[in-house]
């Protein structure tokens, strides 16, 4: 049942506070949805809940991916099912090289899906090709994961992981934050190169800027834990002019 991501009336608490207050959203295969909204609106929470980060309590609603209840799954099971989260703040792991990390992750996912592990030589070639697309130097593949990487390199590295793991749904959590215009373009090209009828994207961003390069099919505005408006790419452009002021709740 390849109907993509279906979120229904999702309520999420962090501690006592309700952060998401009933989100409903469907992302069909092949589509790019953008979620925009002011700071603190719950954008990152949504990304984290979909990918299973600990620390959030789902108090109501459902999240299904291709007909399967995602909320019951461990994070690694969601990954194997094809869900990918590009982190807003990529994590460093000293001593574990990019190459080892990606090989381990890819093979763990393949194994979980009952596929054969990739031969080490074939993997290396595969990895180098992907790295080239994102203009990442070979040398960076040998360096420990994100250790000593610049902000831009870290974000490109997230895109490399996405390219290697070939997810069915990629969630980009403010991937554009802290990027200069060149890095932004490289990241966007990386994403666009991976757009396909089978793969969908959920692009979370505060600014419209990224959406100049990754043109979304649908744009949602999230404010105060609710989707307050849905439209096409024009909505994002309009927001650039007006800002989020319209969505501030009445005092």
């Amino acid at each position: 049942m390849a109907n993509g991501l279906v979120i229904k009336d999702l309520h999420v608490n962090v501690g006592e506070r309700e952060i998401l207050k009933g989100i409903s959203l469907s992302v069909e295969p092949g589509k790019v949805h953008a979620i925009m909204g002011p700071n603190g609106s719950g954008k990152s929470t949504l990304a984290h809940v979909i990918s299973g980060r600990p620390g959030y309590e789902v108090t109501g609603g459902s999240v299904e991916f291709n007909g399967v209840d995602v909320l019951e799954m461990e994070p690694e099971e969601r990954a194997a099912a094809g869900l990918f989260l590009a982190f807003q703040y990529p994590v460093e792991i000293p001593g574990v090289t990019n190459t080892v990390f990606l090989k381990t992750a890819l093979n763990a996912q393949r194994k979980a899906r009952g596929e054969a592990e990739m031969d080490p030589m074939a993997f290396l070639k595969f990895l180098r090709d992907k790295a080239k697309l994102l203009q990442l130097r070979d040398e960076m593949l040998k360096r420990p994961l994100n250790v000593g990487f610049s902000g831009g390199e870290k974000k490109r590295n997230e895109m490399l992981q996405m390219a290697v793991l070939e997810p069915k749904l990629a969630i980009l959590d403010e991937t554009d934050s802290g990027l200069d215009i060149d890095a932004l373009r490289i990241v966007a090209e990386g994403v666009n190169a991976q757009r396909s009828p089978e793969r969908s994207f959920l692009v979370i961003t505060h600014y419209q800027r990224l959406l100049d390069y990754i043109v979304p099919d649908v744009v949602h505005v999230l404010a105060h834990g609710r989707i307050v408006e849905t439209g096409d790419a024009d909505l994002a452009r309009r927001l650039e002019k007006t800002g989020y002021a319209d969505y501030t709740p009445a005092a």
Partner: protein
Amino acid sequence: MASSTETVETVNELTGAYKYGFVTDIETDFSPVGLSEETVRFISARKNEPEWLLDWRLKALALWRKMEEPRWAMVSYPAIDYQGLHYYAAPKAKTDGPKSLDEVDPELLSTYEKLGIPLKEQEILAGVVAVDAVFDSVSVATTYKAKLEEKGVIFCSFSEAVQRVPDLVRKYLGSVVPQGDNYFACLNSAVFSDGSFVFIPKGVRCPMELSTYFRINAQNTGQFERTLIVAEEGAYVSYLEGCTAPQRDEHQLHAAVVELVALDDAEIKYSTVQNWYPGDVEGKGGVYNFVTKRGACRGKRSKISWTQVETGSAVTWKYPSCILQGDDSVGEFYSVAITNNAQQADTGTKMIHIGKNTRSTIVSKGIAAGRSDNTYRGLVRVLAGAEGARNYSQCDSLLIGDKSGAHTVPYIESRTPFSTLEHEATTARISDDQLFLCRQRGLSPEEAVALIVNGFCKEVLQNLPMEFAVEAQKLVGISLEGSVG
């Protein structure tokens, strides 16, 4: 190779966490229980030792009786009943000893096969490793002897060396670790049973890795092996040591001594993967591992490098050290010590800088999980006159769970201005972010921990010879089994 995935597979294959816990059913020749002059004479007689060696042992026994068990390490264990142990246990052989592998008891050969240490030469990986296997108190087989001897390399059991090259043994035995050095070394000097002897003559680069595999089998038996490695001028040898013991409810005592001597331009690389039985989750059983390892860089530009991966034993007390006597000599210590459940490890090194321009490097990675305590204890001492000495020490600890303890106790003593000593230490834990990232990319929590810990230990693990590195990576994961979740 995805070591973490394999680790978990390996773990899953096992019923218990400790893979080497089986007991070999073999007829054993014991010394009478207890420690006395008679015990020492019994051991010496069994080995047909010359008078001087018996006297040497008896002198050690006399010294030992006046000594007190050290208590400064951060380990606690019930009093050891030194009179309740066997000090010698050997598999009973039909003849005096096996002359060749064909004469070795098949039960023993299969034990080593189960342990992954094939003793049949043709089975050993393309001839790159020669193995000496020590079972309880005696060496049962040494492979590739002939091939080594073409080069003039002597690699045999300690007992055999005493018979074959008594002068060499007499010259170097106790020259690095004297009998009265410390309580456990002294005990070893009195009752040591067997071990390995290596001699690399001048200018020879040992053509293959040498390896000793230690196995404690018998019950209520202490293992006291003694290893002596001498590298003459310009010689090179890489030596590996592995250890396992059966799973038993009572504690087993292991007090070994290793002495290394490197003359001018010689290099000795000594690697250990210590996986003695660590005891169960509750701390029942396990090996008490009190080991004295010391290398003397006697010659100019000599180098001694210790690499250890310590995952086993209930209690570890071990400080492989370098005495940097020769000018421009180099000492290295790379260590990974993992404690889980109720294990306790107090381990580190001593670097004694005596010669000019001597250099030492210490990299220690301690990982504490469960309710364990893991202590790095190390001494860097620069004597007056060791001008130009340099040391760099880095000690990192990783805590897994909130019931364990990780400690760093360095002693830094400098008596010359013309030296540079740097010490850094950090303590941290695996962050939730790191775990979540790994899981988001598809790894199970166990795989994630194994991957992150292997990364943490990388600087040390990469110093191991290839054949051991892969084993060690797997061991890292297995040792931490059950530490998360």
